């Protein structure tokens, strides 16, 4: 191998894996075909079908039945072109125009059975009223209200309903003209309206609203589909077929093998994306011409530059998806198990669809900081010709950094005997060695998903009690179950339920630090508000949902201060701290636990204040070797927020903040003094 030997090895593995995958026609052909055909299907054939039905309906005579007092109506409509007045199935031919009355149920049944496309029902006295009106008798005896019955289940009937309305309106106009003539009123011709459509210049880079809404979601979906199968085949499949052992004893390192597989999966996933883009791009030239007359935005227009941008932005996304899929495939013991995992994940891949279809989400600073979603919104914005180069560049950088992070986390997958060969160590030994990456990943995923889905429902349904339930069910229960039931680890040691090194004084010092952390959180929030849009509206909405203003103080302190002080500390400074402790140096540990604590709060606005608080709490846990001082500080910090919200309605005066800061510094000093090394 010439050149860089590691690169040559990676490319060698990539080449083989791609050749292997591309020969799997059964799996590949449907995927590529789906990618290629989705565009034409959505942009040409689906609208073509709608257009075809409408065209057919437009060419054929409208089959209309008249019921009720329809004598005058019959006279009005019989000469209308494209209309054929037919009797109902239970009427005798030629009876139209006679006064008859049927129940609405009977008429709907007639429509359901497609015996007639539309029915016009005239009220009793309608003919007499119209006659009187025509003769110039003022004030019609009966309001001439006509009912048009059609069924929305049948497109032809729907179209017939709309057409009937237009015919009746035009008859009404004719009737009015005649009436005006009879009355001898002179009406001046209305001035001709001069209409001009003004649209902002888009430099030819504007995709149609239809594509702008669906394309990014479809691209992510096909990228996901394109990554799943190769990931399972190249990792879980390799193990199941017995080809993994010969492979890992070759002189090529397992990281190189993983890198080769990763590039292959990315290529296949990206191939699906490109096939899809080609499908959409080409199909725009073969769209049915009648699309413009439809009242909804079905026309597909995809400028080449938009397609190229979308393709470029999808590359890091495909890499992120590929590495995630490979890491997940590594966790499955068998192909069947992996397929089970991924089937449920398919629903997660469908989530961006909602984001795209809502249509009114655009790139802003918080969104551009969210990997994956930020890229999706960027693609949407490009398709809508909304350019914000700074935010787009930020979003791309965040996406790339996220991808690099994922690759670094997943790179040792093939080096791990537990994942590759199911060689496990006893939990107690793994705890000693700090080898709990998999459990930590599952725990964090479970907690974050539960926070996202269950917590919101709990809060909406049970208001403030929902917060307590969240703490118990989402925060505490998964942590406790993992330690006690699954890993069977010593609860006391793992959760840090030990006597703090500084005794009660360290707990007191930690609690007294709360004014400082609170002031710091206010300062950070203030600084953030200079750069990020305010979330006051959101806070107010949350307050209304929770009904915080109406609850007694003791309850607020119990639920907002004490329960997170216990439950969140047990999870973050207890379990997560213990699982990461052996793996990371102190500085890294403080940063990692703090960042996870910040992410847990699921708000861009709250990330920085909570992450910094989390870091301080982790430092306290490290220094005191106990979770109790952390609980005291956390509860006191939240308690201060509750008390101030209850008693102080305006902004705090500056000198209060200084006093609070100094008190907190004293508390921190007390903590540091009490936990000093003797």
């Amino acid at each position, binding site marked *: *191998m010439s050149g860089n*030997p590691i690169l040559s*090895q990676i490319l*060698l*593995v990539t080449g*083989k894996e791609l*050749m*292997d995958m591309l*020969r*799997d026609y059964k799996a590949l052909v449907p995927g590529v075909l789906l990618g290629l055909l989705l565009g034409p299907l959505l942009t040409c054939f689906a609208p073509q079908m709608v257009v075809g039905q409408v065209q057919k309906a437009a060419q054929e005579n409208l089959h209309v039945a008249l019921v009720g007092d329809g004598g005058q109506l019959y006279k009005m409509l019989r000469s209308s072109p494209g209309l054929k007045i037919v009797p109902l199935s239970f009427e005798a031919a030629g009876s139209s125009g006679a006064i008859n009355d049927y129940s609405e149920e009977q008429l709907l049944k007639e429509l359901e059975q497609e015996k007639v496309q539309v029915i016009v029902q005239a009220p009793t006295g309608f003919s007499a009223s119209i006659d009187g009106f025509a003769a110039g008798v003022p004030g019609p005896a009966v309001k001439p209200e006509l009912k048009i019955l059609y069924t929305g289940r049948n497109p032809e009937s729907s179209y017939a309903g709309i057409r009937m309305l237009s015919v009746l309106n035009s008859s009404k106009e004719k009737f009015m003209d005649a009436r005006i003539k009879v009355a001898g009123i002179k009406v001046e011709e209305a001035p001709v309206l001069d209409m001009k459509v003004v649209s902002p210049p888009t430099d030819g880079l504007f995709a149609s609203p239809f594509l702008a809404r669906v394309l990014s979601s479809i691209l992510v979906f096909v990228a996901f589909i394109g990554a799943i199968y190769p990931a399972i085949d190249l990792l879980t499949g390799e193990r199941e*077929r*017995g*080809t993994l*052992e*010969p*492979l*890992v*004893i*070759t*002189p*090529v*390192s397992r990281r190189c093998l993983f890198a080769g597989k990763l590039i292959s999966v990315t290529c296949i996933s990206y191939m699906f994306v490109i096939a899809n883009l080609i499908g959409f791009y080409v199909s725009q030239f073969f769209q049915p011409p009648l699309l413009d007359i439809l009242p909804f935005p079905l026309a597909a227009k995809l400028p080449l530059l938009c397609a190229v941008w979308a393709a470029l932005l999808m590359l890091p996304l495909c890499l992120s998806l590929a590495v995630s899929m490979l890491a997940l495939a590594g966790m499955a013991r068998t192909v069947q198990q992996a397929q089970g995992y991924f089937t449920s994940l398919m629903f997660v891949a469908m989530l961006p669809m909602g984001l795209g279809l809502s249509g009114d989400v655009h790139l802003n600073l918080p969104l551009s900081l969210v990997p994956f979603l930020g890229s999706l919104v960027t693609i949407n914005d490009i398709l809508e010709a909304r350019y914000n180069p700074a935010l787009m560049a930020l979003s791309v950088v965040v996406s790339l950094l996220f991808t690099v992070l994922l690759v670094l986390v997943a790179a040792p997958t093939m080096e791990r*005997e537990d994942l590759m*060969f199911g*060689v*496990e*160590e*006893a*939990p107690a*030994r793994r705890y000693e060695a700090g080898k709990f990456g998999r459990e930590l990943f599952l725990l964090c995923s479970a907690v974050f998903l539960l926070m996202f889905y269950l917590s919101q429902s709990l809060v909406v349904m049970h208001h403030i009690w929902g917060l307590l339930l969240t703490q118990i069910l989402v925060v505490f229960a998964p942590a406790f179950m993992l330690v006690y039931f699954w890993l069977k680890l010593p609860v006391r040691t793992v959760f840090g339920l030990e006597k703090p090194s500084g005794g009660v004084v360290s707990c007191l010092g930690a609690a007294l630090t709360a004014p400082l952390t609170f002031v710091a959180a206010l300062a950070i929030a203030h600084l953030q508000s200079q750069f990020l849009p305010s979330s006051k509206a959101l806070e107010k909405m949350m307050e209304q949902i929770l009904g915080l203003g109406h609850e007694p103080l003791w309850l607020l302190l119990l639920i907002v201060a004490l329960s997170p002080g216990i439950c969140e500390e047990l999870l973050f400074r207890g379990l997560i701290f213990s699982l990461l402790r052996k793996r990371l140096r102190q500085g890294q540990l403080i940063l990692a636990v703090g960042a996870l604590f910040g992410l847990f709060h699921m708000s861009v606005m709250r990330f920085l204040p909570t992450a910094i608080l989390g870091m301080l709490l982790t430092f306290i846990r490290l220094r005191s070797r106990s979770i109790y001082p952390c609980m005291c500080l956390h509860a006191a910090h939240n308690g201060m927020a509750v008390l101030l919200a209850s008693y102080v309605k305006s902004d705090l005066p500056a000198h209060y903040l200084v006093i609070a800061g100094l008190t907190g510094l004293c508390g921190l000093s007390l903590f540091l003094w009490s936990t000093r090394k003797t």
Partner: protein
Amino acid sequence: MSLLVNGVSKRFYDKARGEFYGCREISFEVKPGEVYGLLGPNGAGKTTTLRVVSTIYSPTAGGASINGVDIVRDPQTARKMLGFLSSTSGLYERLTAREILTYFGRLCDMPQDVLNKRIESLIDALEFRSYADTRVAKLSQGTRQKVSIARSIIHDPLLMILDEPSTGLDVLAAYAMHEFVRQERADGKCILLSTHTMSEAEKLCDRLGIISEGRLLASGTIEELKELTGKSNLEEVFVHLVRNAAQAAAL
């Protein structure tokens, strides 16, 4: 060239059994031109030992060296010197035999011209030329076995590790496998194999290690083992050693 295995242990854990050792303090040596067999019942720890020696698993304790190269400290170099073949080893179904051999040869960093010559000679030696360019999915079990053998020795390793090599093979394929082992021994290679059949051990192995419950109970030539146990044939030697070990463990 020799293989030195020194106190290798591998610990496992599962929820039902708790913690247990797949192999424990296993030590032996395989000299050049020698076939060393690990003989033991199913679940004795043969495969675990071979997997540790072939660097698939990392040892919990102990280690091994191939020609002086430590398999734990420098696994990449050690891997260049060993070939591993197991009855459960699979092949890439969508690749042809020649493509598989090329892939593994290049993974072992063989120059292209040397690799091409080696592939041709192996195809002739193992007699599968007519199937060399057929995808593996269409090959018979016997031909697959030949391709597997060729794959494991494509880089001409000094140490061959064979895990129950004739399991699942018909008489002819098993015979061909035995021929292959003899040929490798004649070429001066070290061969470490595992088996649970007495006849195969007697036919192929120069020295044997009797293994049970993860421990090496005895090691030596068949004659030495007979002498050690006072038994007249290998089957009796084996049963005697394994039962004694079980009784000792029960006590």
